[in-house]
């Protein structure tokens, strides 16, 4: 129903909460318990805390380049929460909120950004692929996982993310086309955060919405207010259910905003006005959800204070756990290229080790 109401052509956003956190689409409100609501809010705060800490670690020279998600928490937490445990998450690199929901340990997250491959070694049972840096390339993997589900007769669904910039890549096109042709159970979520590094969304493509690109593939598409956690949940849920029942893929454009820099190496003042950022800060997804929760009497300032303190503590201690203790073992550089190390790699490893032992 959400999809029928919201033809992807035209600037109509699917929305359940208005900017003040008031319910404007009562019939679509997900039936969450208070605990669930607080858990979602907690995850958004967790995500925000990690971002903020990482940025400050980076400034202190304790962390490498980092890509924060600030402003996109509702998009990620809302959509990922619609997934089941056995569903697959195929991320790009800016999906912290989704990772947390899917159970990626904070230690992995830190390890990854700290520059150690073990960060991408997901624990057993966590069906999350490693970060994919080459833009839009991960969408092909998502489609492949979905196709495999169909072949094996499994009912899992794949949720994958891409940026507004990523929609211009050939891989975006091919992955969506394959998914539609093979009715792969994949939900493609475009995190339209309005920028690809410095390039504004309107220069990325001449189509009025990104959601309308779904029409090219004969799949349903919808434009969702990405800062509305309920709308994201509810649209993703419907898409996941359709996929699980054999209805094939869906394209969701989550209309949101990157409040921070592209990465810690980026200076957004070079390409956008403070004014624009300020306007979007008022639409901060955490604020909106907070207003809703407070209106409902679920959230207290005290809980929030305490929670933030705890989160800060957890984040700090986890980071300190890996800091300065996570250099890559020389063997690890060589060991994981093939199941069995071929002779030339063994030789290179031995040569290098003996060079090091030679005392230089």
């Amino acid at each position: 129903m959400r999809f029928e109401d919201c033809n992807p052509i035209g600037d109509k956003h699917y929305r359940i909460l208005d900017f003040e956190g008031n319910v404007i689409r009562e019939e679509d409100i997900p039936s969450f318990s208070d605990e669930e609501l607080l858990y979602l809010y907690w995850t958004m705060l967790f995500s925000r805390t990690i971002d903020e800490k990482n940025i400050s670690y980076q400034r202190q020279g304790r962390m490498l380049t980092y890509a924060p998600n600030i402003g996109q928490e509702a998009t990620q937490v809302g959509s990922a929460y619609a997934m089941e445990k056995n569903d697959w998450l195929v991320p790009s690199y800016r999906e912290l909120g989704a990772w947390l929901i899917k159970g990626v340990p904070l230690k992995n997250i830190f390890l990854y950004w700290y520059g150690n491959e073990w960060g991408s070694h997901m624990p057993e049972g966590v069906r999350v692929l490693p970060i994919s840096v080459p833009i839009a390339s991960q969408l092909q993997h998502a489609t492949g996982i979905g196709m495999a589900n169909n072949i094996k007769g499994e009912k899992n669904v794949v949720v994958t993310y891409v940026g507004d910039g990523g929609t211009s890549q050939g891989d975006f096109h091919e992955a969506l086309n394959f998914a539609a042709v093979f009715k792969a159970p994949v939900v493609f979520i475009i995190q339209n955060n309005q920028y690809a590094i410095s390039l504004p969304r309107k220069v990325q493509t001449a189509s009025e919405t990104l959601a309308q690109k779904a029409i090219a593939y004969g799949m349903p598409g919808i434009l969702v207010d990405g800062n509305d956690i309920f709308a994201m949940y509810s649209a993703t849920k419907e898409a996941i259910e359709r996929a699980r029942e054999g209805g094939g893929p869906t394209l969701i454009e989550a209309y949101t905003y990157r409040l921070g820099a592209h990465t810690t190496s980026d200076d957004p003042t070079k390409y956008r006005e403070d004014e624009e950022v300020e306007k979007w800060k008022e639409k901060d997804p955490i604020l909106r959800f907070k207003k809703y929760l407070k209106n409902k009497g679920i959230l207290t300032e005290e809980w929030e204070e305490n929670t933030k303190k705890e989160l800060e503590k957890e984040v700090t201690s986890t980071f300190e756990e890996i800091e300065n203790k996570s250099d890559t073992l020389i063997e690890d550089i060589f060991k994981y290229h093939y199941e069995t190390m071929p002779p030339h790699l063994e030789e290179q490893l031995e040569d290098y080790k003996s060079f090091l032992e030679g005392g230089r």
Partner: protein
Amino acid sequence: MANKLNIVEAVNQALMNEMEKDETIVVYGEDVGVEGGVFRATVNLQKKFGKDRVFDTPLAESAIVGTAVGMAINGLKPVVELQFMGFSYPAFNQIISHVARMRNRSRGRYTLPMVIRAPYGGGIRALEHHSESTEALYAHIPGLKVVIPSTPYDTKGLLIAAIRDPDPVIFLEPKRIYRAFRQEIPEETYELPIGKAKVVEEGEDITVITWGAMVRDVQKASEMVKEKGIYPEIIDLRTISPMDRETFIESVKKTGRAVIVHEAPKTLGVGAEIVAIINEKAFLYLEAPPTRVTGFDTTFPLPRGEKHYIPSPERIAKTIEDVVKF
């Protein structure tokens, strides 16, 4: 029991055999299903194993390879076909950025048991981009294996090994000799080790290293030089990456001379690496410079020029003589 097959039939039988044994194998690509492949390598597979396991895809190589990555992560063993090696480049990003890297990136958490098959090489009077031998590109990339058979027997054994391999294999089929000759080969399944070269002909005077369709041309050259009293040892590399260095090093240590023959352009063709390895491992045994006989550093010409491009048995024989006389 008689089972005389040519190379393309050996590909087909390897797929048949393995798909019967292993339900997780899926085969797909452009025109591989209904039509059975433009070279008929996958003929009858769809009839036998159904449309779920053998199917045609839309025309998009990056998607063919990229979805295979996802399938392999999700428990299947995709064996995909790229119609010609010259059309593997749209998939290059997926191959180099993901196929080659997933195991290392995830420290072994996600692995990619998958095979990318493609016919390669020139000499079939084809249109542009249909004559490529760019095995060197893939052999430069850590994390890939590159296999090139030269006989029906090897084709079947190596393809089966590639399918069973826990890591991604680029399997290049020498289309010039797809149907050049038949061999009696076992009907049942068998495996030849990836990473092992084969001494095709023993000899004392010079080591000739080659692979794919060139093996037969080298054998012809060998017949020519034998008449002049030169006895080459011919090595069919079979696996381009990771290379069986030992076999050719041992041979060069014995003969003191080496010629490397390939179709690909000379500059940074696989021959360059072989020369470099010989230098590293057998320098003191060398009585002449290891020498390459290769395609030119030019685009593969359209058919009216292609006869000049691929090293002829005569050109190979001449070089062998020159190196022996050095």
